[in-house]
């Protein structure tokens, strides 16, 4: 296997960003933003997940096939949740 394309320094920067996002998401609980609270929380969570995937899991430096398989699960989960919601949200 080739040597790691990502340096330890980069890993540490990503880690610090993750901790900062964790602090932000906890702080947001104490700030009333109405319906935006949930949006902010989810955006932060997705950002953290992407940082872990792109850097810790090397997806940023992986071939396209890996990008496809890395996204496949989430896309399919969206069908499961979306399809069920078409029922649950439209019941009379």
């Amino acid at each position: 296997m080739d040597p790691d394309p990502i340096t330890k320094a980069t890993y540490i920067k990503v880690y610090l960003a993750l901790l900062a996002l964790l602090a932000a998401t906890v702080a947001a609980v104490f700030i009333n933003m109405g319906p935006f609270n949930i949006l902010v929380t989810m955006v932060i969570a997705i950002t953290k997940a992407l940082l872990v995937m792109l850097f810790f899991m090397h997806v940023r430096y992986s071939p396209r096939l890996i990008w496809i398989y890395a996204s496949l699960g989430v896309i399919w989960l969206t069908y499961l949740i979306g399809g069920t919601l078409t029922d649950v949200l439209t019941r009379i």
Partner: protein
Amino acid sequence: MKELNYITNGYSVKSWLLTKDHKRIALMYLLAITFFFFIGGMAALIMRLELLTPQADVVQAETYNKLFTLHGVTMVFFFLIPGIPAVLGNFLLPLMLGARDLAFPRLNLTSFYIYVLGASFTLAAAVLGGVDTGWTFYTPYSSTYSNTHVITMAVGILITGFSSILTGLNFIVTTHKMRAPGLTWFRLPLFVWAMYATSLIILLGTPVISVTLALVALERGFHMGIFDPALGGDPLLFQHLFWFYSHPAVYIMVLPAMGVISEIIPCFSRKRIFGYPFIAFSSMAIAVLGFFVWGHHMFISGQSIYAGLVFSLLSFLVAIPSAVKVFNWTATMYKGRIYLRTPMLYALGFIGLFTIGGLTGIMLAALGLDVHVHDTYFIVAHFHYIMVGGTIMAYLGGIHFWWPKISGRLYPEFWGKLSAMIVFIGFNLTFFPQFILGYLGMPRRYHVYPPEFQVLNVLSSAGASILGMGYLLPLIYLIWSLRYGEKAGDNPWNATGLEWKTPSPPPTFNFEETPVVTEEAYAYASRPELGHV
């Protein structure tokens, strides 16, 4: 000194039970699924015996419920879903790709033992007294009210799901990473495309049924009331989760069968397949679209009518790629030189019966019609036309087609043809009357019925006994051929495909040297030296 092949390379029990050879693992699966086919078949025979008369004479209602549950569970999870992938897929995929084995041989063996573990739990549940929820395990009956061994059977099935997942994973990686030099995606046999699409469905659908059955088990065991209406839970959510897998599961059961047909038709028409890219892409389309339609199992469940409309529309769409395949197989045979050997008889039977099953499927996609025939024998007939008239016929066709490669022997052609015809006749006699019964209103999963339905039921039961005979014959003559059958050469059908370029039976590592591929699949026209079948 005689060349060692995969069968003669080691005779000890340990060399089989701890094998990493995909071909030996395929044979172990063959034995296992044949055992479960027998169990599921016995359950069906007892049911059909009961249904000879309108009253209950053979079994009580509770026992009947356990029988149709056992029939559904064993046939779906332990025969049809593993079926072609675990037997023919495992055996053929590396050969068709020019590889020495699958990507992860030890994982393959692990898959098999996980299957055995799941099977043991399921058999234990049956022996302890069975389950009466139907193979569909609907809540809240399965999660709260049933007094049968639901947890044991649910655990058995969810464990077996992992066997399926690991096999699919193995196939995906093997297809991506281990093709022989020159074997581009569009030179692959269509069986490989079918296995790849199937593996995608397995990967993305099976985990959902595993977690869902686990939740039912937890609800029964630990009162984790997620589907419990008393806690505000919605039992319908179980159905959404269940069918999210179980609808694509029917494509897990039929796509490999279609892959087999795509191999048989060109060989016995001596012609390249018509519309190769369309068949390849239609397999992928079925895999994707198959995930969008699960709500058509829930039209009368209390699901929102608007969701029903969406699922109905999408269900019409999913029929299109299947139709494309039927047209292409037919076009392949047009102006071909047709040889009506046993595999071809099964393939032709498949095309006809799958078409009937598929057309009735389109009828069922229509919400209005489905409301009338839901939970009647119409549904039972529809899915048996696909699963038995389709998948099992393709499976038998494939077993016969590749039998020389697997065993090194030829099966007796007369008995092959005779059995195919008995199966075809028995099948139609069993299931065609069920369309009529369902349309007239006979409910499914009932052991009694109004007397006016008796004639049709008697026809169906008579058909079932003929069908059973048809299945028994190959069991006998295939085993007979292992000892007394004529020895097969490398390529008894003069077929294209890398699997025919190696001896029958193949050596353990498949090829002396890794083959290099320079031509398209099914190059019958450009290889006149192949001659006739």
